[in-house]
Structures are given as C-alpha cells and as structure tokens.
C-alpha cells in the first residue's frame, strides 16, 4: 500500500478524527455508548456503511449529475443502512433493540455524507474504500473507549460480565456512578478526550 493510501487509514485516528477533530457524529456517540456491546455494534455498522457508500458513490461518481448528487448519495446510504438494520434484526436482535432508532439515524450521520461529498465524489474506488474504513474506524475507536469507560464505571460490568462484583469492590463500599450511564457524561468524556488530544497536538488548537 502506498504511503498516500496508508495515510487515508491512519489520519482519521489522529489529526482528522471525525469525532474529536471534525466534531461529527456526536449524537449517536452520546446515545449508544452506555454499554460496550451496543457501542461496538454501532461502530461496526457505521464503518460498514461509510466504507461501502464510499465505494458505491466512487464507482458511480462520473455518472452522477451534480444537481442531484445529494439525493443519489442519500438513496445509496439509506439502502445500506436499511440492509444493516435488517441484518441486525435477524442476527443480533437484542442489540438491535437497544440501538433502536440509532441504526436508522446512521443515514443522517454527518460522517457518512461528509466523506461522500468530500472524498468519494472525486476519488477512485480503492482510496475511497480506505478513506471510508479509516473514518469508520476513527469513529469506532472513540465509541469503544466511551463504551468501555461508561459501562465499567456506570454499571460495573464489561460486555455484561460483572467485573466490579467479581473483584469484590462492592463489599468494601464501592458504588457505581449513576451519572456515567447518562448521555451528558458521554459529552463530558468526549470533551476530555478532545482536551487531551489537543494538548498533544498543538496545531489542532484554534488561535
């Protein structure tokens, strides 16, 4: 893989992270990260949708009339999201119930449309796939961190496994933090991640 293509994968993890730098896709990242499992499934769903939508739009890019390009993008994204939703309902029913409307709302996730407009409309399919994967995974990494922290400290479990109970922490007076499972805490955690991220990358700070 060429150096330029490799950057498409790695940049979204750091200086072009969709959540912490571009501040896109915040809504779903607050809503589905109370537990690790739905967070991971949501992350995978978004990654699949962004990557495939990027490839399809990139393949069609020369045939799409610019005046109706947003509608075309929307139809393609909607199709992929409905497919993901149907597959989840068939094979991961409990998770799909937990995610409820948020799977459908991937359609309006700014990351997806953002990548289509900014990248797939003007790039070849292979770089578009990498760009989609990179952005999806950059989104995923934040969701997984949030899901991990919020489930561990909010419910005392990880992937449903009662880790705090097994460690015997409740017997010595430990209590779960109820605020952790509320969406506002996710926003505070995202804020902390952004703070940490910018303190390490001075060029990301506004003047």
């Amino acid at each position, binding site marked *: 893989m060429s150096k330029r293509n490799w950057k498409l994968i790695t940049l979204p993890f750091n200086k072009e992270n969709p959540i912490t730098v571009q501040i896109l896709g915040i809504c779903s990242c607050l809503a589905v990260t109370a537990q690790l499992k739905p967070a991971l499934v949501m992350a995978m769903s978004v990654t699949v949708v962004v990557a495939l939508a990027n490839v399809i739009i990139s393949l069609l890019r020369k045939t799409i009339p610019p005046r109706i390009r947003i509608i075309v993008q929307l139809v393609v994204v909607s199709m992929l999201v*409905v497919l993901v939703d149907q597959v989840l*309902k068939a094979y991961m*029913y409990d998770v799909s119930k937990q995610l409820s409307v948020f799977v459908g709302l991937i359609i309006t996730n700014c990351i997806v449309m953002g990548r289509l407009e900014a990248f797939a409309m003007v790039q070849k399919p292979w770089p578009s796939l990498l760009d989609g994967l990179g952005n999806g995974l950059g989104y995923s990494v934040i969701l997984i961190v949030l899901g991990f922290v919020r489930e561990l400290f909010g419910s005392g479990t990880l992937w449903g496994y009662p880790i705090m109970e097994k460690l015997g922490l409740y017997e010595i007076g430990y209590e779960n933090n109820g605020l952790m499972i509320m969406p506002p805490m996710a926003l505070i955690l995202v804020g902390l991640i952004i703070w940490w991220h910018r303190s390490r990358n001075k060029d990301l700070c506004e003047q």
Partner: protein
Amino acid sequence: MRQFSNRYMIIYSAVLVAVVAVVLSITAVALKPLQERNKEREQQQMILKAVGVDVPRQEVEKEYNRCIGQAYSDDSLMYYYYDFDNRDGIILPLCGTGLWGPIWGYLAIDKSGAIVGAVFDHKGETPGLGGEIASDKFAQQFIGKRITDSDGHVKPVRLKKSADHSSPFEVDAISGGTMTSNGVNDMLAADLAKYKDLIEGGVQ
C-alpha cells in the same frame, strides 16, 4: 463540467431507485423468517419471565415448551397456562395504549387469584418516565397482589400515587409517567373484564 440533460437525470434517478428497491425487497423477504423467530422468542421469554423463569434467549424455546401452554376460554379468548415444578395457573395477555404507542404485558395468576408475576413492555414510552413500566422494579410490585376480591369477583389492581402497599389491589404508579400509568390502569381494567368469566369460573 459535463452537462447532464433533464431526461438523463430523471431516468438515472428512476433506475437507481428501482435497483435499490429490488435489493431491499430481496433482503427483507430473505431475512423475514429469522426476524419473525426472534420476535416469537422474545415474546416467549417475556411470558416465562411472568412466571419467574429467567432464561437466556438460546434456551427460551425448550423452557417455554416445558412450562407454558396455550388455550382458549369458553368464549374463545386466547390465554396461556403454566404447569411445571408443581405450580400451575393461567397467564393473561394484556394489551393497551400508553402515551405514545401500544403497551402490553403478561399477568401470571395462581388458582387462588393471586398474582405470581407480571411483566410489561412498551413500544415507545418515554425512557426513564413511562418507559419504566418495563423495569423489573415496577413489575415486581405486582407479585402477591390479587385480581379477585374475597367473593371471587374480578377486581383489577390499580396504579396509584402513594399506594397503600398492604392493599392487595394497589401498586405505586410511575412518577413522571402519569399518562402511561393511566394506560396500564385502563389496560388492566379492560383486559381483566374481558377475561372475567375465565377468572371467576376457572381459577377459583
């Protein structure tokens, strides 16, 4: 930039939408049996929970077949019965309307008319408020309550603000979920009245 004619754009969108429609229809039809089975399992799991059997989704079918049966009353109303581990009685399906959409539940009753368990669920009540009817904490209040008075007549359990916990006909309503609580009250009253003959005749 290449120019596209209006005719091109119209045909392009029509073809695109048709292709997408075909793909989605095929998927929906292909996955439907699996989705239906998931829904059925979920319902069976709920009914099992009403009689106090909490099993993971994979074992639902086996346990359900062991514990639960389906029957029809004289006036051809469908109800469930349970008969396992020396416990038996009937389970009444309930359905009504909450604030935003349908609510439903199952009420397991023993031979004396006492409630041995209840479970409720909803389509779209407000999480944290009306949505709390689906919580174990709410459902567990029903255990030990009664649906028949001392003469054996049907008397529905009521959700009330600051309920008298010693009364067999009162449980605490959901604070902040008055409309949903009212819906549960109406549902209990209407559906228990519907099963009046079955309860007064069969259970006593």
